[in-house]
């Protein structure tokens, strides 16, 4: 039987979310779940605050999300806890806002969610620098500029805003879309060479 004095202890840091979930599914000890959820408290608080814009409400929302997670995860298996928690948090906040008759247009996050789940695929493959370089050159001007400044010159979002004149939202969008397009271009090139 397991009793953890402090789930924040670094002693579980080396264990991945997936391994902790597997342990939970094998012995149904909620404390494994506690360790996983503990890792996402701050991020969940941030997401809830982004939508609810109220510190107390955001805190309460995280508590409810934890409760939901403890109940739901015992019922069925979840493959990617990080993406799942994000989805639960967003849905919870959107429902809360809907109760107050506030409607936020839901952006299509499916592409980004896919990036979260298949993240290791490309990194695991040996990608030649040449392939990346040529693909980078094929991006549109805004995306190429932002991706280059961000990833290669390691400029901060704010520095890119200052040097390009784009808004923060535009910079983030050019980087995210540029990265996604770069991935697609690299994949295409890899498939054509195979």
């Amino acid at each position: 039987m397991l009793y953890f004095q402090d789930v924040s202890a670094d002693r579980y840091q080396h264990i991945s979310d997936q391994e902790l979930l597997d342990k939970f599914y094998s012995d149904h000890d909620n404390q494994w779940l506690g360790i996983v959820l503990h890792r996402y408290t701050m991020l969940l608080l941030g997401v809830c605050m982004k939508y609810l814009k109220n510190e107390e409400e955001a805190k309460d929302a995280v508590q409810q999300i934890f409760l939901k997670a403890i109940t739901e995860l015992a019922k069925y298996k979840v493959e990617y806890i990080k993406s799942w928690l994000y989805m639960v948090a967003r849905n919870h906040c959107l429902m809360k806002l809907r109760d107050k008759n506030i409607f936020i247009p839901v952006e299509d996050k499916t592409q980004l969610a896919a990036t979260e789940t298949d993240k290791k695929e490309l990194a695991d493959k040996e990608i030649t620098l040449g392939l990346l370089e040529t693909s980078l050159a094929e991006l549109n001007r805004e995306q190429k500029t932002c991706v280059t400044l961000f990833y290669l010159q390691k400029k901060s979002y704010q520095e890119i805003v200052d040097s390009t004149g784009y808004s923060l939202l535009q910079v983030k969008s050019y980087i995210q879309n540029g990265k996604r397009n770069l991935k697609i271009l690299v994949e295409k090139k890899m498939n054509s060479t195979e």
Partner: protein
Amino acid sequence: MTDLKNILHHDDELDNDELMRYLEGNASEEERFAIEKQMADSSFVNEAIEGLQHFGDPAMVKEYVDLLNKQLQKQTAKKLVRKNKRRLKDQNWLIVAILAILFLCVAGFLLIHFSTVKHG
């Protein structure tokens, strides 16, 4: 240009202390790049940090997180204790059931034994 590979490489580790320093504007260049890279990689991280930046005082973030973690720890520990109690209760019932069956077997045996002895 070796940093090119950074573009498609994802890093999952997000340290709360680093994140706090980033929110307070005290992160090093390296930490700032690591966090913003994760923001670009993950809409979860991006939205979370945008939300955390809405807190009037970044110190409050830590306070709320600590409080939530304490409650979470209690919640996950409590459930286990309750589960263990239930398990013990179940075991008690099992012992009672076994004893009852044994008693019935012995009683049945004795009844048959004495009735055959009487008739015999």
